[in-house]
């Protein structure tokens, strides 16, 4: 009798496992190219989708190398969401090797695209820009929350088309998220408005903040080009130090993945103190300060404000 009860119990447990597994399968598998985009897609999709992110937190999409797991998740996906603007140069190969035939949503469709700023000093001298820059569009559009409103709408449309039964859910989630984005934007605009133009200057090791700077009228200067793997010349470093000395900038940041050594030397030589990390291309791990897009923006902005006070 006891044995019988055990068997029944076991079967029941097994059944619940199976049914929960099939419930998980019922979620739409969606792949997002990198962590920030993954967070936005998850906010829109809510419980109806299961998001897989290819380039994870704290990882650099510029030097991403797909592993078999990544190909597998693309092959299983019903929808692939990318940033576009040349950010995911590797995506075409991944989609091909996964033999993925579904839709690829370009989240940045419809935003006001900004050109990449080539190095200012080079432009003055009439030199060509660095030739490792592919394309002329700046892909870092997510650094402006107003662009993420467009991203959100694109994602809502794509999910609704794929899963019409959930359309109203996606619409609701999207509206909620857009409200949060607008609130963030209003708060940030107010905060930056406290500073005169002359103080709104920042130096980072990664000029991924072109959209951010244009939106909030903050001037970002960088010792390195857009790509993380570019090596600076002595001339660029010298020009930057001269500029810091001349314009008296105190806000110097190390972006979360480029080489810190050089920037430390520059800030030391120019006599400025280093700010914390700014998160440019990737979220932090869940226990870090920037595990979601909204938190990332808020964290970056607070860091910037604290450092600008010293300018």
């Amino acid at each position, binding site marked *: 009798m006891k044995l019988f009860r055990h068997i029944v119990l076991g079967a029941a447990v097994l059944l619940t496992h199976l049914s929960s597994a099939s419930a998980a399968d019922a979620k739409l598998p969606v792949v997002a190219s990198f962590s920030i985009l993954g967070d936005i897609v998850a906010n829109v999709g809510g419980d109806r989708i299961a998001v897989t992110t290819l380039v994870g937190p704290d990882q650099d999409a510029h030097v991403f190398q797909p592993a078999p797991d990544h190909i597998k998740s693309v092959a299983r996906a019903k929808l692939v969401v990318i940033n576009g603007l040349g950010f995911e140069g590797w995506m075409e190969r991944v989609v091909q090797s996964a033999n993925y035939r579904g839709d690829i949503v370009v989240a940045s469709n419809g935003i006001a695209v900004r050109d990449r700023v080539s190095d200012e000093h080079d432009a003055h*001298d009439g030199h060509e820009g660095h030739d490792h820059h592919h394309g002329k569009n700046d892909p870092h559009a997510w650094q402006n929350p107003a662009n993420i409103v467009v991203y959100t709408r694109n994602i809502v449309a794509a999910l609704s088309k794929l899963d019409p039964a959930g359309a109203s859910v996606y619409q609701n989630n999207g509206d909620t998220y857009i409200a949060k984005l607008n609130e963030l934007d209003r708060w940030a605009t107010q905060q930056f408005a406290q500073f005169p133009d002359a103080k709104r200057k920042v130096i980072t090791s990664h000029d991924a903040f072109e959209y951010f700077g244009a939106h909030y009228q903050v001037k970002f200067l960088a010792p390195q080009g857009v790509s993380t793997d570019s*090596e600076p*010349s002595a*001339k660029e470093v*010298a020009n930057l*130090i001269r500029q810091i000395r001349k314009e008296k900038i105190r806000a110097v940041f190390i972006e979360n*993945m480029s080489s810190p050594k050089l920037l*430390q*030397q520059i800030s030391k*030589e120019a006599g400025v103190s280093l700010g914390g990390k700014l998160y440019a291309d990737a979220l932090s791990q869940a226990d870090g300060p920037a595990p979601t897009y909204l938190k990332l923006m808020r964290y970056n902005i607070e860091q910037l404000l604290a450092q600008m006070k010293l300018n």
Partner: protein
Amino acid sequence: MMLLHDFYQFAIAPFQEFAFMRRALVATLALALSSAPLGVMLTLRRMSLFGEALSHAVLPGVAAGFIFFGLSLPALSIGGFLAGVIVVALAGWISRHTELKEDASLAAVYVVALALGVIMISGHGTQLDLLHILFGNVLGVDTEGLLLVAGVSSLSVLLMAGLYRGLLLESFDPSYLAASGGRNTIYQQLFLMLVVLNLVASFQTLGTLMAVGLMMLPAVSARLWHDTLPAQLVNSTVQAAAAGYAGLMLSYYASVPSGPVIIVCAGGFYFLSLIFAPRGWLPRMLRRPHLRA
């Protein structure tokens, strides 16, 4: 007077205005003083590719240092040094106890070490270009790095001077040294340790390309100029120092990445030496016109 002023503005002012230029120059000169002569010794022993192999072999040690202690220069350097010494010792042991020659066993061991290093780094999570972070840049030399390069350079020059006779005998005639009671393997081991030490110090401060390039290029082209070893040693140091200075100037005025352009300058000297040096192509052509008849 005007000319003197222009020269000062062009050649010295950049170093006066910027500390990073001074540090880069001093680090490069220190490296030239010890690495280039070591490179000459390496070419004597037909171990020219040793430096290149070693630049990969230190990776697991550097990775271990990074994983356990983070970005600390002593940890990365000690880790790299230990890994390099282990690889060299292992390759030496294999060549003494099996039929494999030293270069063959080194080729096998360093590739395994490199693979281990890559696994350790990628297992650690972040997939960023750790090589850029773990190895230095000549423009980013800090005081710590400068002390490391200067210390290693001084130690190497002193040790080389002390061991000169033994090193020389062993390079040219190992059997004589053994017969006369010299301790052959001690010299070999000490010498290789010096090489590892120099490479690791300059990887950490200047980057792998600069370390290997400044060790080997001036050494190879110095052999084209002189028959005697002392002359070759001096020549290689002068060439390395000149390449360092010329490269920094080019990087400053023409805005090209410093490390690579320093190596290209050393490469330029090598190219000129190939053609014009006494043991290069042109003098040889001129010396034997009778061959054509």
